[in-house]
């Protein structure tokens, strides 16, 4: 790795095809150029330029710190995305040194100042080893001028550490110390049509045919899947058209082929010439037509990978472009969510107790089918739409270059989330108890009396009898329970957990601010951030920026709401199963102490339909923790646990682990809330907590966002948090550093007995 290696190599420099220096893409394009193929002119910033940049900026250590916080195997996709976002921010925060700026200037001397350029990744080995890693790294088009090129180069370098690349880190051999990235800067070629072409059918490499796809305009539209292409299959030997399929595009000429026979012939000729040059069958990106065909990229065809069990491919499919996101926004916000809301309400209104056995069985099956359908929609539409928030994050950071890569979160605020409305309703009830000490005392007395066996209707009647002014509270509680708590958490209906909620209300009523809505908004206001963004992008991109913000906001809101709305359907299934189980139990056709859940649908439906079936037995299912503490041997105890600093601040308190519905009512104000993940169903507990510790990591998850808004320290991504920490443990949660210290702040020193 001598320092005499060049920082820049022009694409047309003869013989400079060392892939270790220029990366795979540039090496192949340089070879094609030298062989006489039409390739957009340009230059390559070599891997040495990357090395110089990361060394000068101290980025290697930053990457190692980011990726070394916990084992990558323990990191969820959201945490990997967070790590990539912060690494990207680190790259953007560092400017190029004088030497590198001069190098870029030298490369740009060959271009007119107004030339539009494409700044493309050229990673080492990304198109080799029988597998293409196309799309893991970034390419930026439409770049003009020195500063814009420098910015784009840093973004492309940062994409060596994109979330996608981190997912494939093993296959890529990604390593903070040794990995490097070259960058290709090329003149953009504007042509009427572009496309991809394969020297052999990638679906069946043995077929003697080439496949050509074409779209109007730039190739990126096809590669990003934004435009449906015309599709040809040609005989490799004769060039005859075997098949033609027109693209489904919303344009006037969608039935006329985009390419004529001579265009197809030239693409075929070029493909076969490239194949001859390299000795492998190429997958080629091209632009232009016969007479002006330009090769944009050539790499070996890789056989289609069986990704049926490949969840990473699914994750990568979530990275939708703005057009797709907007389509999805319309579909989700205007069709799916209202439909889901209406269904939940309709099911909740059904009087199941009045149904005969057969209609009740039908109702149970219909609910189970509805849940299955909506869970599929959840994966197919809701989760991909959640990408809208991530798109907003990168868009905002690229434009504003904020020091805090999560500053954009302020843009998501002030939306009427279902969870916020629920928390407002809970806050109102708590305030009533704070203002009426007699009522609160009456509830506390009754809670002591009914502890463990509380049924709301009985409790309500008793409360009305002994407490003046209980009517308003009771009506409010009924309303809140029906509107917001007819949902499931941990396979149980929160609607049936009135004792827990009443205990939470008592605690909230004694808190300094009984309202549990997000009043103390931290950071800059949404309006200020919006202005900051619009100023940064300028008037030309104003509309685009507003669209990205709106999609991000809707995405965030619905991502929170959809959980609760699906949980409402689940609650309706449990309600129907409860009605059926009660009926069957009374008839002696159901036994056991367990409560029915979704695994009992078939047996209960059968029992309702056929009186001759064997009685159903519901076993009480013991809940087994999914994870185990890392501290299992005698003498082993945690002292300091690390996670992500998800909300700043330091707080000391005793641990209360929330592992299921039974724990909700035990939460006391000032305790440290420790759980696997803060669910939208339990966010009302957050205002009671002095701090939050979660196993699930991420800066954009419910717990982190709410904690930041309420100014409560939060550390998340703590491995096995709910299993490692025990109720009553004294912990100090440092939300600045992402550290949870276990034990008293005043440590026991080693004052042990002297041995004699």
């Amino acid at each position, binding site marked *: 790795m001598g320092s005499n290696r060049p920082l820049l190599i022009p694409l047309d420099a003869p013989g400079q095809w060392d892939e270790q220096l220029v990366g795979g893409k540039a090496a192949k394009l340089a070879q094609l150029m030298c062989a006489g193929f039409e390739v957009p002119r340009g230059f390559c910033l070599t891997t040495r330029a990357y090395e110089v940049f990361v060394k000068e900026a*101290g980025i290697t250590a*930053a990457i190692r*710190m980011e990726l070394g916080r916990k084992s990558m195997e323990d990191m969820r996709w959201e945490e990997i995305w967070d790590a990539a976002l912060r690494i990207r921010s680190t790259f953007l925060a560092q400017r190029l040194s004088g030497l590198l700026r001069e190098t870029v200037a030298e490369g740009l001397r060959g271009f007119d100042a107004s030339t539009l350029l494409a700044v493309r990744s050229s990673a080492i080995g990304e198109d080799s080893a029988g597998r293409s890693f196309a799309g893991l790294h970034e390419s930026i088009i439409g770049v003009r001028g020195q500063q814009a090129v420098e910015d784009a180069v840093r973004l492309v370098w940062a994409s060596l550490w994109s979330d996608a690349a981190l997912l494939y880190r093993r296959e890529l051999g990604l390593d903070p110390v040794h990995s490097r990235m070259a960058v290709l800067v090329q003149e953009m070629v504007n042509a009427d049509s572009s496309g991809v072409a394969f020297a052999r059918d990638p679906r069946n490499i043995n077929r003697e045919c080439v496949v050509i796809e074409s779209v109007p305009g730039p190739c990126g539209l096809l590669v990003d899947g934004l435009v449906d292409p015309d599709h040809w299959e040609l005989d490799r030997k004769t060039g005859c058209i075997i098949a033609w399929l027109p693209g489904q595009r919303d344009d006037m000429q969608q039935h006329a082929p985009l390419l004529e026979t001579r265009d197809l012939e030239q693409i075929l000729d070029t493909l076969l010439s490239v194949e001859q040059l390299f000795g492998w069958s190429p997958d080629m990106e091209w632009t232009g037509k016969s007479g002006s065909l330009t090769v944009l990229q050539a790499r070996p065809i890789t056989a289609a990978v069986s990704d049926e069990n490949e969840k990473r491919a699914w994750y990568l499919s979530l990275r939708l472009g703005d057009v797709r996101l907007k389509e999805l926004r319309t579909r989700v916000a205007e069709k799916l969510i209202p439909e889901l809301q209406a269904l939940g309400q309709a099911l909740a209104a059904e009087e199941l107790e009045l149904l005969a056995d057969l209609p009740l069985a039908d109702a149970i099956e219909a609910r189970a089918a509805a849940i299955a359908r909506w869970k599929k929609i959840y994966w197919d539409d809701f989760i991909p739409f959640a990408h809208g928030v991530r798109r907003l994050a990168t868009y905002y950071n690229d434009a504003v270059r904020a020091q805090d890569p999560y500053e954009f979160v302020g843009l998501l605020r002030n939306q009427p989330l279902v969870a916020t409305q629920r928390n407002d309703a809970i806050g109102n009830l708590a305030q009533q108890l704070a203002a009426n000490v007699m009522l609160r005392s009456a509830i506390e007395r009754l809670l002591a009396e009914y502890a463990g066996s509380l049924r709301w209707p009985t409790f309500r009647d008793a409360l009305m009898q002994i407490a003046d002014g209980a009517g308003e509270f009771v009506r409010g509680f009924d309303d809140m329970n029906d509107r917001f708590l007819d949902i499931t958490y941990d396979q149980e209906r929160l609607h049936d957990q009135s004792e827990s909620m009443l205990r939470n209300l008592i605690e909230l009523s004694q808190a300094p601010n009984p309202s549990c809505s997000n009043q103390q908004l931290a950071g800059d206001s949404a309006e200020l951030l919006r202005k900051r963004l619009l100023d940064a992008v300028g008037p030309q991109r104003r509309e685009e920026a507003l669209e990205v913000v709106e999609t991000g906001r809707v995405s965030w809101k619905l991502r929170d709401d959809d959980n609760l709305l699906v949980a409402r359907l689940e609650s309706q299934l449990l309600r129907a199963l409860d009605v059926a189980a009660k009926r069957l139990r009374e008839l002696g056709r159901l036994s056991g102490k367990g409560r029915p859940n979704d695994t009992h649908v078939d047996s209960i439906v059968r029992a309702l339909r056929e009186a001759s079936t064997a009685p159903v037995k519901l076993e009480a299912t013991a809940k087994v923790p999914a994870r185990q503490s890392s501290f299992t041997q005698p003498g082993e105890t945690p002292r300091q646990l690390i996670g992500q600093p998800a909300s*700043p601040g330091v707080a000391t308190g005793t641990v209360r682990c929330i592992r299921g519905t039974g724990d909700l009512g035990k939460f006391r104000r000032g305790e440290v809330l420790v759980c696997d993940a803060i669910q939208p169903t339990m966010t009302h507990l957050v205002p009671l907590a002095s701090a939050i510790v979660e196993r699930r990591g991420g800066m954009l998850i419910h717990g982190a966002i709410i904690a930041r808004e309420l100014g409560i320290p939060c550390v998340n991504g703590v491995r096995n948090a709910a299993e490692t920490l025990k109720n009553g443990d004294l912990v*100090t949660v440092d939300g*600045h550093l992402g*550290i949870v*210290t276990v034990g008293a702040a005043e440590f026991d*020193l*080693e004052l042990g007995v002297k041995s004699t």
Partner: protein
Amino acid sequence: MNNPDEPLIDNNDMSESPLSKADPAVRERIQSLVDKQPYAVLCVQGNNQPYGALVAFAFSDDLRHAVFVTPVATRKYRLLRECEHVAFVIDNRSNKADDLMDIEAVTITGRSQMIERGREFERCSGLLVTRHPYLKSFVNAASCALFRVDVVRFLHVARFQEVSQWVPTARS
């Protein structure tokens, strides 16, 4: 007659060694070691209990001051607040037994002082962030405290047992 196999100066007995005017080479070797090594073992004490912890450090140009940062919810923070007498150990060990004679180490003694936010904090944290840019957010975190160690003495060890002392003075 001098025995040619014995060292010319016995550096092991520091109390008798007039080494405050050390050979300039000693300072250079110390400078080289602290420049090359980013981390040191910080030694603190309290209630007669010694305690050691690894820290990232930076020195002022004149080597009279060292700076480091610790989260406040730590044992070393508590001990630092209790007793200002501290030591650092910095070495270039490679953890191979064969390298014993190649190891250089320096033990630095001094007094620590917590630096409150202000001009001196900016100066000291600047030293640390320049040396460790990836620790910027750690250094500036509200839950961290920055300490400056005013150095009293350097004890440089080479070739297993060859020890030299250097006491920085205002002129050095």
